């Protein structure tokens, strides 16, 4: 569909959103996502879109709230501290059923932390993030190719269910270069239907209101329960994952994004030595591939969760496994990147322990 390009993850992501039909971007500089606003600043005017460098992340997400209310495809991006600032606005979008789209090119935290790639924002992403009961559709790319190709799917899911959608990447995915091809037809926004809730010219129809509140007694619960039906449908229909060598695996690695890349290296080392190891890579972090993990828990002997955070993904794996088999953790928080070698070393330990060669912990 297009030629092979060598692009930075951030640029591939930006180009991917434009090709997916994004015509409005507002954002604020923060490392390691600066290539996204830089790219959008010249690319969007080329296609008749709007780019604004906002005065803050707070302003940026609220500009998105306004722009998205007119029914067009919008995007903002930031990195961890900036995403924290956007949470109130994201909560408003969730409450007003606006299908906004954004990326967190995450870095080490808490606080100012550092500018290295990290996965410490997992909970913030998959549990809503801001105030109130809500969910965000979360995709976790693990390559530049996925950075460029996931935005279209995010828009489609966001619009179908009227929920915010996000990409949870990290500094490594944002900064690295890899070959990629855009595997979809470029979307012409004019070909998209204007949604029936979009604000604009009300000639010949009733006025429309976009809002996240209802103060009348019991009304907000009904509003939230109706939204929860869509959440349930997303959980049933929109789960994505990649399972590698899981069929006969005695130990299954679970990892997403950059830590899945390191885990793949470990998987290859293990298989080269004849060790029965598999890898489950959640591609959607919410909805989480809970059923797949339950199914694997019935066959495998243990899980090893690899994450660039203190132990967040491991909670979701443990909830799914529900005590059937042990779930171990390899955690490298705050900007550290696990190596294939160190993961492989822990795989060997866990397999030895499984076989009763010695008892650990």
């Amino acid at each position, binding site marked *: 569909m297009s030629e092979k390009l060598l692009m930075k993850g951030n640029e591939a992501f930006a180009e991917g959103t434009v090709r997916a039909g994004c*015509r*409005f971007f*507002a954002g604020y500089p923060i490392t390691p996502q600066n290539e996204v606003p830089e790219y959008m600043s010249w690319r969007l005017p080329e296609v*008749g879109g*709007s780019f*604004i460098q*906002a*005065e*803050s992340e*707070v*302003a*940026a997400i*609220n*500009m*998105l*709230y*306004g*722009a*998205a*209310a*007119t029914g*067009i495809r*919008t995007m903002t991006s930031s990195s961890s501290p900036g995403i924290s600032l956007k949470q*109130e*606005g994201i909560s*408003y979008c969730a409450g*007003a059923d606006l299908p906004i789209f954004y990326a967190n090119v995450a870095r080490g935290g808490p606080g100012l932390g550092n500018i290295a790639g990290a996965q410490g924002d997992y909970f913030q992403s998959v549990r809503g993030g801001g105030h109130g009961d809500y969910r965000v559709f979360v995709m976790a790319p693990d390559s530049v190719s996925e950075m460029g190709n996931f935005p279209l799917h995010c828009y489609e899911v966001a619009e179908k269910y009227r929920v915010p959608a996000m990409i949870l990447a990290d500094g490594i995915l944002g900064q690295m270069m890899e070959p990629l091809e855009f595997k979809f037809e470029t979307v012409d926004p004019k070909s998209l239907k204007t949604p029936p809730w979009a*604000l*604009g*010219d*009300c*000639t010949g129809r009733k*006025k*429309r*209101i*976009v*809002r*996240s*509140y209802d103060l009348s007694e019991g009304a907000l619960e009904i509003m939230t329960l109706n939204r929860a039906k869509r959440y349930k449908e997303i959980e049933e229909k929109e789960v994505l994952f990649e399972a590698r060598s899981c069929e006969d695996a005695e130990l299954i690695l679970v990892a997403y994004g950059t830590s899945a890349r390191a885990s793949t290296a470990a998987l290859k080392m293990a298989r080269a030595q004849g060790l029965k190891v598999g890898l489950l890579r959640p591609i959607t972090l919410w909805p989480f591939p809970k059923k797949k993990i339950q199914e694997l828990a019935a066959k495998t002997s243990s899980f090893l969760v690899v994450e660039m955070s203190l132990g967040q993904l491991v909670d979701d794996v443990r909830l799914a496994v529900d005590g059937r088999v042990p779930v171990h953790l390899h955690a490298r928080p705050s900007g550290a990147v696990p190596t294939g070698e160190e993961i492989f070393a822990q795989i060997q330990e866990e397999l030895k322990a499984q076989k009763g060669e010695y008892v650990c912990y």
Partner: protein
Amino acid sequence: MLLINPRPESLVDVKMHYCPGCGHGVAHRLVAEAMDELGIRERTIGVAPVGCAVFSDDYFNCDMIQGAHGRGPAIATGLKRTRPDCIVFSYQGDGDLASIGMGETIHSAARGENITIIFINNATYGMTGGQMAPTTLMGQKASTCPLGRDPQVNGYPIKVCELLAQLEGARYLERVSLHTAAHVIKAKKAVKKAFQNQVDGKGFSLVEILSTCPTNMGISPLEATKFIADKMLAQYPLGVYKGAEGGKIDVSRN
């Protein structure tokens, strides 16, 4: 019976929740009349704030969006850049515009966004119950400064029109009041001009309306108008701070 001054089409025929003597009802009517007279109701999108006017999304008879506290100008920016053919206004109180949302206020003005802002200054927080506002007068009592605003503790009130007048991007700034019928008529002219400017592509227009909140001040509606005349006018002089001189901004911006 002959109805000389019927309800504007731009105002939905529902009962408003505002307290007796509150200025919001009058201010809403002025906005609605301006929309009617300019014939822009259908293509207008309003931004409702957080505060007493949160429910204005039910009252104005045009597409409405209600947003986070203080972020009206950012939301209006997103709407206007996406739909430059629409007329976009943000209706905000003093806590919303001059406290939590001061950043958005200043930067939307600095960018010269072609939007209209209706700013209600009643020197108090209404919906949350009479706390000190950024515009609360020196010595004025509030539920968070029960002994009166003290500069040692609370600093000084913010004069929004004077502040924004420093910015090249702000094109039209006028302060008006609602405390007498004559002032209401003048306020109407200012509100209409702020919308006309946007229709003409002239850029950022803000009308600051001195208004009443008798409930939170614990006084009668009449006393509240007297409070404006005797106290607020001295701190907040009425008048035009920027007159929308010059022509259009670059309307090719989107």
